[in-house]
């Protein structure tokens, strides 16, 4: 990209009639035909429609379409059940930061002199490889409270009763249910963060550690003055991704609780509004709102990362 002198352009002179130029243009057009087509038809046309529909009252079939102006946006922001779902994002956001802190801690331990570090790394990473639906079902059972007829207590309640406690309704108590779902999310995704952090820590030159060792730096100092600054960009990046992740949570709460007991998220609300209640106009407005939030977060990301350089 940077080496201007060596691009193939030099070999294909900008003479409109030259064979090389024509050949180059044919290659460009042929190679870009499919991706352009896919991008326009399945991303940009739907995106444009989304904006247009957000000002209309319409169902999935598009009969009796009515222009309603900003009515849908007003509904999104004023109806508690729609906008309140954003409140649950705070649980996930908070959870993501705990996840990052814990991942950084475990990654630092795994990068120190330790036996079986590959085994430990493999174990904590493996949940990331398990199918989402499988993870959700595993924890639906894990947190279950028995009803005494068809179902017994799940794993966690069995442990609680083993120690003499009373079973807890983990998944049907408002507030608590979100904490459980956040735990599932951390359980599944923390391994990914750990692998990222280990990659970043190992990319720091070993000479620096050796020099610190010679200077008699202790473990905390090594972390504070060598590891932390070295992996700062990746931490910032993961934090921004955590924000984007927290407002787009869908699969785990949808499968574990179906969004009941106050565990619904904005994306669950959007898809239900569109496909269950057939309010495509309103759902489009919700999608546009989510898009705008992501744009704002991305602009912040660019500013923060730029400043960091």
């Amino acid at each position, binding site marked *: *990209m940077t080496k201007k002198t060596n*691009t*193939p352009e030099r*070999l294909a002179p900008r003479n409109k009639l030259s064979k090389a130029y024509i050949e180059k243009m044919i*290659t*460009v*057009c042929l190679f*870009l035909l499919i*991706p*352009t087509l*896919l991008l326009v*038809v*399945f*991303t940009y046309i*739907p*995106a444009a429609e*989304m904006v247009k529909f957000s000002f209309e009252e319409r169902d*999935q079939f*598009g009969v009796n379409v009515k222009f309603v102006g900003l009515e849908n946006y007003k509904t999104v922001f004023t109806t508690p059940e729609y906008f309140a779902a954003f409140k649950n994002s705070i649980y996930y956001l908070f959870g993501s930061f705990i996840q990052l802190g814990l991942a950084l801690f*475990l990654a630092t*331990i*795994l990068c*120190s002199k*330790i036996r079986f570090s590959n085994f430990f790394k*493999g*174990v*904590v990473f493996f949940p990331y490889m*398990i*199918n*989402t*639906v*499988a993870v959700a*079902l*595993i*924890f639906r*059972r894990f947190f279950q409270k028995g009803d005494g007829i068809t*179902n*017994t207590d799940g*794993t966690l309640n069995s442990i609680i009763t083993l120690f003499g406690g009373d079973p807890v309704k983990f998944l049907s108590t408002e507030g608590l249910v979100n904490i459980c779902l956040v735990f599932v999310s951390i*359980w599944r995704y923390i391994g*990914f963060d750990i692998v990222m952090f280990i990659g970043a820590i190992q990319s720091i030159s070993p000479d620096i550690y050796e020099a610190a*060792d*010679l*200077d*008699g730096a202790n473990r905390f100092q090594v972390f504070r003055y060598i590891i932390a600054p070295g992996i700062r960009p*990746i931490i910032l*990046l993961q934090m921004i991704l955590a924000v984007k992740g927290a407002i*787009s949570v*869908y*699969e785990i709460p949808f499968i574990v609780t179906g969004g009941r007991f106050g565990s619904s998220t904005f994306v669950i609300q959007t*898809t239900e509004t*569109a*496909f269950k209640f057939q309010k*495509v106009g309103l*759902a489009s407005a*919700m*999608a546009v709102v*989510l*898009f705008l939030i992501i*744009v704002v977060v991305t602009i912040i990301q660019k500013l923060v990362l730029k400043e960091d350089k």
Partner: protein
Amino acid sequence: MAEAVIKNDSYSFVPKLFTVLKYAILVIACLVVFIPLVVVFLGSFKNNTEFLSSNVFALPTKFEWSNYKTAFIDGKVLLGLKNTAIIIVISCTGTIIVGTMTAYVLQRFKTVLGKVLKAAFLLATLFPAISMQVTVYRIMNNFHLVGTMAAPIILYIGTDIVSIYIFMQFLDNISYSLDESAIIDGANYFTVFFKIILPLLKPAIATVLIIKVISIYNDFYTPQLYMPSEELSVVSTSLYRFMGPYGAKWEIIFAGIVICIIPALVIFLTLQKQIYAGLVNGSVKE
């Protein structure tokens, strides 16, 4: 020199305590991962009566293989694995062909069309994927693609900016002199791409394959929306459907979960290093 090393690693009591603490933390982390999984594994071998009466950590008294048979055949997990494999193979082939070709043109030729497309791809990463389906669904419906494997396959191939970025980054490090000498020898751009560039992109292709396979295998929303019929079950949707008919029969659901975990475990154990490397390389795109 030796003095410093010794001071840090043994002799005093505090570092030893640190070491014990480190292992203790790691063992606890492993238990947190293992406990939910062990219960699933044990439970999958119990029959219904035993499942309801025994402790969750109790070993099964008799191995009940019929749960696996039910999950495999009646629960359509086998069909799910087959359909998932078909979708993965076609989508990955498509992504690699389209992705490498796009990256080659965008990175090697500075054309106006290329620049516009690159910006368009970047902007598209900001669209919220699941919420967008509200209107993508209509388009798919207009093309009569809802209820076919083509719908998810097109989406997996068509919107994959991450792969294109990984290929472009890799191309940055492939010297232009290779292209030049081939062109001087009379090769056209197609030959350069297929004979020189594509073989050199192998490591990037491996990275993309790893990220792609994991994300398709895990996707639940797309197949659920576009392939609602039972014949088109993939791993995630077939497992999801278990909740209906086997609502109270956790031992069968558990067997289904174990069947889904095994291929992931085998792939993980054989490709561990490549998977870590692939994910780390793939994250650089942001």
